[in-house]
C-alpha cells in the first residue's frame, strides 16, 4: 500500500517538475520569438524621425502567458484529459442512461416551436414579433422542410441531387400561376403543387436512372438550371425576370388576413397587424414540416423506405433480392420532389411574389449543405443544421455591435458567407458524419441500437 502511495506521490512530483521545466522552456522560446516583435516597436514621431519604443511590460505578459499556459497544460489539462478518456473507455460497456432531455428531444422541440409565437409576442409585442416569427421562424422552417424533403432523396436513397431547388420552383410557380390565372385557392393548390412537383421529379428521374454519383449530380444540376431558364424565358406565362407578383394570400377557413371588416383582426377584435398573418404562416409551415417528418418516419418503416436505404447501401444486392430499382428510385425522386413542391407553394404564398432569382443554384447548395451537415438520414440532425445555418446567417445581419470592435467600416453582412463557409469546414472536421451521424434502425428483435455512421454508406447514385 505504502509502495503504491509513494509511487503515485513521486509521479505527482515528477509531473510538476516536468511541467515547470517545460514552462521555463516555453517562456524562453516565447521570449526569443517576441523580443523583437513585441518588446521593441519602431514608430515615427512628429518630426518624421524613427524612434524605438520599448515595451518590456507587454513582452513580459506574452512570456508569462506562454509559460503559465504550458505549465497548466502539462500539469493539469493533459492528465485530466487522459483520465477522462480512460473513464470514457471504461464507461462504454455500461449502458448509458439517456437524460430526459435527450430522450424526449423531439417532443420538447415541437412544444417549444408551438409556444414560440405567443412567447415572442409576449416578449417584444405584436409589431416587434414580425422579425422573429417571419425572418427566423418561418424562414428556418421552410429550409427544415426542404432539407427533410431532400433527405429522402440524398440521405435515404443515396441519390445525389444538386437541382432540388427546381422542385421548389415548380411548387412556387404552380401556386403563383394557377392562383393568378384561375383564381384557385391556396388549400386546393397546396396538394396540386405537390403532385406537379412529384410529376417533375419523375420526369427528372427517368433520364438519370442509369447514372451514378458524379454523373447524376451533374445532370440534376443541369435540370435545376433548365427549370430556372424556362422560368426566365417563357415570358408570356411566367413574366420572365419580372416575376409573378400580387399572389393571393392564404385564408384560414375563408377568413382573410386583411384590414377588411370580416378580416381576422376585426373578427377577433384585435388591432390590425400583419403579424397575425405571419404567425398563421408560422403554424402552417410548422404543420407542413411536421407532416414531412411524419411521412418520412412512417415511410422508413415501410418496405419502400427500407428499399431506399438498401439502394443507398448496395444497388446490385437490391436487384438480386427482387427489388425493382427503377420504381424505387423514381418514388424517392417523386416523394422528395413532392415535399419540395409543397414548400415552394408555401414560399409563394408567404412572399406574395415569385421570380426566378429565388431559385438559383446556391439555394440547392444550401439545402444540400444542411442535409450533409445535419447527418444524412437524421431528421433531428437536419433540423439542428437548418437552425444553425439559416438562423446563423440571419443572426449575422444583427451583429452591428461588431462595428465597435472592428471599426465603423466593418459590415458583418459581407462576412456572412465567409463565416458560413468556415463554420461548415469546422463542423465537418469535428463531425465528419454531420451532427447526428448514427442511424436509427427501423425494426429490431431485442433492442434498438443506433448504428454508427462508419457502417452506413453515402450512396453512389
Amino acid at each position: 500500500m505504502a509502495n503504491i502511495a509513494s509511487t503515485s506521490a513521486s509521479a505527482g512530483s515528477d509531473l510538476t517538475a516536468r511541467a515547470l521545466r517545460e514552462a521555463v522552456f516555453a517562456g524562453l522560446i516565447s521570449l526569443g520569438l517576441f523580443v523583437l516583435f513585441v518588446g521593441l516597436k519602431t514608430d515615427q514621431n512628429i518630426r518624421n524621425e524613427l524612434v524605438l519604443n520599448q515595451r518590456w511590460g507587454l513582452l513580459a505578459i506574452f512570456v508569462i502567458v506562454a509559460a503559465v499556459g504550458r505549465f497548466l497544460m502539462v500539469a493539469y489539462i493533459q492528465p485530466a484529459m487522459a483520465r477522462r478518456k480512460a473513464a470514457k473507455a471504461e464507461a462504454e460497456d455500461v449502458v448509458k442512461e439517456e437524460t430526459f432531455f435527450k430522450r424526449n428531444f423531439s417532443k420538447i422541440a415541437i412544444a417549444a416551436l408551438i409556444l414560440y409565437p405567443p412567447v415572442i409576442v409576449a416578449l417584444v409585442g405584436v409589431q416587434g414579433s414580425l422579425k422573429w416569427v417571419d425572418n427566423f421562424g418561418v424562414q428556418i422552417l421552410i429550409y427544415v422542410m426542404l432539407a427533410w424533403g431532400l433527405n429522402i432523396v440524398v440521405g435515404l436513397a443515396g441519390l445525389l441531387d444538386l437541382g432540388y431547388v427546381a422542385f421548389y420552383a415548380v411548387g412556387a410557380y404552380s401556386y403563383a400561376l394557377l392562383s393568378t390565372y384561375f383564381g384557385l385557392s391556396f388549400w386546393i393548390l397546396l396538394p396540386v403543387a405537390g403532385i406537379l412537383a412529384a410529376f417533375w421529379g419523375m420526369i427528372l428521374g427517368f433520364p438519370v436512372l442509369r447514372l451514378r454519383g458524379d454523373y447524376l449530380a451533374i445532370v440534376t444540376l443541369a435540370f435545376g438550371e433548365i427549370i430556372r431558364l424556362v422560368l426566365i424565358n417563357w415570358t408570356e406565362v411566367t413574366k420572365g425576370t419580372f416575376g409573378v407578383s400580387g399572389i393571393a394570400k392564404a385564408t384560414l377557413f375563408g377568413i382573410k388576413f386583411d384590414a377588411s371588416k370580416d378580416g381576422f383582426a376585426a373578427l377577433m377584435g384585435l388591432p390590425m397587424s400583419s403579424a397575425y398573418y405571419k404567425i398563421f404562416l408560422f403554424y402552417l409551415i410548422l404543420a407542413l414540416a411536421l407532416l414531412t417528418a411524419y411521412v418520412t418516419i412512417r415511410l422508413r418503416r415501410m418496405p419502400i423506405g427500407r428499399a431506399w436505404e438498401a439502394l443507398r447501401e448496395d444497388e446490385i444486392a437490391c436487384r438480386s433480392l427482387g427489388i425493382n430499382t427503377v420504381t424505387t428510385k423514381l418514388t424517392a425522386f417523386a416523394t422528395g420532389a413532392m415535399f419540395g413542391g409543397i414548400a415552394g407553394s408555401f414560399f409563394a404564398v408567404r412572399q406574395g411574389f415569385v421570380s426566378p432569382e429565388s431559385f438559383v443554384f446556391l439555394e440547392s447548395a444550401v439545402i444540400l449543405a444542411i442535409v450533409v451537415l445535419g447527418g444524412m438520414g437524421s431528421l433531428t440532425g437536419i433540423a439542428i443544421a437548418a437552425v444553425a445555418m439559416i438562423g446563423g446567417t440571419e443572426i449575422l445581419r444583427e451583429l452591428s455591435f461588431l462595428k465597435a470592435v472592428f471599426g465603423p467600416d466593418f459590415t458583418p453582412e459581407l462576412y456572412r458567407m465567409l463565416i458560413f463557409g468556415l463554420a461548415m469546414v469546422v463542423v465537418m472536421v469535428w463531425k465528419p458524419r454531420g451532427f447526428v451521424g448514427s442511424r436509427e434502425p427501423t425494426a429490431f428483435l431485442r433492442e434498438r441500437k443506433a448504428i454508427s455512421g462508419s457502417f452506413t454508406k453515402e450512396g453512389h447514385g
Partner: protein
Amino acid sequence: MALETTTMKKDPILSVEHLSMRFGGLMAINDFSFEAYRGDITALIGPNGAGKTTVFNCITGFYKPTMGMITMKQKSGKEYLLERLPDFEITKHAKVARTFQNIRMFSGLTVLENLLVAQHNKLMQASGYTFLGLLGFPAYKQASKESIELARHWLEKASLVDRADDPAGDLPYGAQRRLEIARAMCTGPELLCLDEPAAGLNPRESLALNELLRGIRAETGTSILLIEHDMSVVMEISDHVVVLEYGQKISDGNPDFVKNDPRVIAAYLGVEDEEVEEVIEQIEEIEGGQGGSKK
C-alpha cells in the same frame, strides 16, 4: 451407368441449353448446356477464369447471354425463360435467388433489416404499395409481424439471432456469408444460386456452412446451385457436379465420377507432355462409352 438412369428420371428445375456469352472477342462461355435437378445440390466447378460466375450472371439476369436458353421450371409447373427476364424479376417471379462472390451486404442496415429488405415484394403487396400501410391498415401490421418471424427463423438457422440488431457490416466474414444466404432464403426461392459460399471460411465455418445448406434443402426443398473452389465442400454436399473449363463443359455427373474423370484431373492439375497421348485415349474411350450408352 446406373447413376445416369437415376438422374434421367429426375425432374430438372433449371435447364441451360446452348448457352454462349461473348464479351467483344472473348468467348467466355461456348455452347454450354447442363441441367440442375429439383431438390439436388448441384455444384459448378472449374479452374479460375473458366466462366462459372458468367454462367451465374446469365442465369440471374445480370448478363444477357449472346445465345442460348435458360429455362426455370417451378414446382407449380410454371416455366420461365430467364434470359428474357430483367434481373429483379428473376428473383421476384421465377424464384431464383443468388449470393455474390464478394459479399454484398447492406452494411449500414441491421442484420434483421437486411432480411426484411429481402421480403420487399411480399411486404409491398401487403402494404397496398405503401399507401394502405401509410394509412395504418392492419394488413400491413400483420404482414410486418410475419416478416419479422420469418427473419427470426432464418437467423436461427444461420445462428445469427444474437447479432440481429447489430449492423451487418459489423459481423465477421463468416457470419456475413451466412447472413447473405439467409437473406437470399428470405425471398422464398425455389432455386438458390451461391457464388463461392465457402470462399475465405475456415474449416470450422465451412463445416457450419455445409450444415446450413443441408438444412435448407431438407427443410424447404430448395434446390441449390453453387460455384465452389473448396473441394471439401463440393464433394461433401453436392449430388451433382458440372465442370467448366474455358467456357465449355468438360464433365458432368456425380462427385465420384467427376473426381476420377481424367479430363477434370487434366484441367486442374495439368498433364505431363508424355502423358498427353494417354489422356486423350482415355477421354476417347469414355466418350465412346457414353455415346454407346446414349444409343
